[in-house]
């Protein structure tokens, strides 16, 4: 049976309302303060260190993002890998169930819109907010770099940094979709927040360890101990990388490495034979770097769409009555 009318009827008003609600909410302020605090520390310290760099580095500007200063054990991008999910979860963990609990859901759905528009509008509103927040952060870092390094970035550096911003938004989008999914599944906002945060901790801390244990327990003992044949060892490493890439955090980290460290030629193991003729430490052109991390970008976007689709299917089947 076909229904009449566009599923996007009313998408605009829903999107605008979500967007303006997010931007004016106290929660957004708190989240931004959190992100700023986390970002300011590595950026500030690495800027101090970079000012003293004397050797010429063609990608000095990008080092603001990637270098881990001596006094703090993480770089700006590593901090982002950790706090972007938190920002996204904070924006979306209660987006559907709070409407249900405030009993606004049935009233809004009795207006001439489909559920599609409501869910998509909420997602896009959150994504736009996330994009604005990350863009602001990005500009702050850029501005600080200009002021404190006194060195304008080259065009290719700007392009790489801009690509990094897009990847960061896509990474946030995955977590936004995940939080939205939990907000559809659970009626209680606390439960959905807890589940989303649990998933975040799982991928941030537990998953790499789980993968390591899993892979080591599957291969023969001599391979695990590092004495296996080269093809066996290679297979083990590739399995491990493949499993780790199920985590959006891994995808994001790899994409960042490829984009912001132009010297990166591969994200997996390299055999000496493959390095023949390569000039060590020479940067790759931007296009080649992009090609290198294209699977990671595709993976992030696909993950975002898949998780959103799951939320969509569950939401369509849900009863609206209390």
């Amino acid at each position, binding site marked *: 049976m076909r*229904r009449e009318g566009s599923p996007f009827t009313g998408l605009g008003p829903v999107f605008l309302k979500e967007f303006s609600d997010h931007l004016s909410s106290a929660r957004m302020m708190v989240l931004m303060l959190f992100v700023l605090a986390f970002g300011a520390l590595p950026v500030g310290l690495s800027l101090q260190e970079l000012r003293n760099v004397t050797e010429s580095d063609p990608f000095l500007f990008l080092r603001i993002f990637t270098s881990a200063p001596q006094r703090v054990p993480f770089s700006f991008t590593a901090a982002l890998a950790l706090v972007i999910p938190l920002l996204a979860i904070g924006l979306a963990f209660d987006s559907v169930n709070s409407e249900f609990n405030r009993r606004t859901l*049935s*009233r809004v759905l009795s207006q001439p819109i489909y559920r599609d528009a409501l869910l998509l509008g909420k997602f896009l509103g959150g994504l736009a907010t996330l994009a604005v927040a990350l863009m602001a952060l990005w500009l702050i870092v850029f501005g600080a770099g200009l002021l404190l390094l006194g060195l304008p970035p080259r065009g290719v550096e700007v392009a790489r940094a801009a690509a990094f911003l897009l990847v960061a938004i896509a990474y946030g989008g995955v977590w936004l979709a995940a939080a939205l999914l939990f907000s559809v599944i659970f009626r209680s906002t606390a439960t959905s927040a807890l589940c989303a945060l649990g998933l975040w901790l799982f991928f941030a801390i537990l998953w790499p360890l789980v993968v390591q244990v899993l892979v080591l327990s599957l291969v023969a003992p001599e391979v695990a101990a590092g004495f296996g044949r080269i093809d066996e060892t290679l297979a083990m490493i590739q399995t491990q990388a493949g499993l780790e890439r199920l985590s959006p955090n891994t995808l994001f980290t790899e994409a960042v490495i490829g984009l912001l460290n132009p010297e990166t030629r591969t994200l997996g193991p390299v055999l000496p034979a493959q390095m023949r003729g390569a000039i060590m430490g020479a940067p790759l052109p931007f296009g080649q770097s992009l090609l290198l991390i294209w699977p990671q970008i595709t993976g992030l976007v696909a993950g975002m769409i898949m998780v959103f689709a799951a939320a969509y299917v569950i939401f369509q089947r849900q009863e609206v009555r209390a």
Partner: protein
Amino acid sequence: MSDQVIEIRGLTKAYGGHRAVDAIDLDIRRGEIFGLLGPNGAGKTTTILMLLGLTESSGGTVSVLGFDPVRQPLQVKRRVGYLPDAVGFYDHLTARENLRYTARLLEIPGREIDGRIDEAMKRVALADVVDRRVATYSRGMRQRLGIAEIVMKRAEVAILDEPTSGLDPHATHELLEIIRGLKRDGVAVMLSSHLLDRVQSVCDRVALFNRGRIALLGTVVELANQVMGAGHPIHVEATGCDIAESVRGLEGVQKVTPEAEGGVRIDADRDVRAAVAARIVSAGGGLQRLSNLQPSLETVYTRYFQENRDAA
């Protein structure tokens, strides 16, 4: 088009093996107030949600203003106003901002929005608090705001789910006045409620739901006649004489039953009040009270569910 605004034929909703709504037929006419009554879980809200296309039906057909809510939900929802049970608004926004959001969803042209909001808020007597945040509203005000939304929408049909539940008597009275106002505008109103005597005062027709079926349908008087039997029941209290003895043999009296609170109930096929009074006085009794027992919806409701308890 006929003056039917809602036409329901054989509507069914099954959850697993349980039939929440079981093949109901119902017609709502233009400009009437129609009451859906029945205990919780009788299928009232499910029926309402199916009318709006918010829940899919398992069988049967529905036509709302000539549209099918399953296939043309946007057309239906554009013309039908719905006030859910315990309606909610965005507390952090003002009433005006809440209604503006709805107006944008309704695609009301931007320059008309504020005028229509002011007009609607005046109708529900909330004009002076339109720019206050909804968090400060009482429950009664929220319900009225919900009706303002329907007024702003210029809906042809208003469906109100338990509009008076949880309201104090004064707020209930105000709300029912507003609902009568909707009727005067030619809006067909369908409401579900537990507050039976209140419903009685506004509804033109009612349907009594029981276990997913419509048990009774008609005006309050018709319902009373179906359940209580036709007739003129009266209530008599008197001192100094045996009422049952003194009205014995009186023409038209069918049954005399003593009531628990004192006095007796006399069922007759005609108005026997004058004759009963004369009998009691001539028997030397002091007539304390003689009242016509209006069939109240509450009595009908209670009696119906007493009689059908075995079935229920």
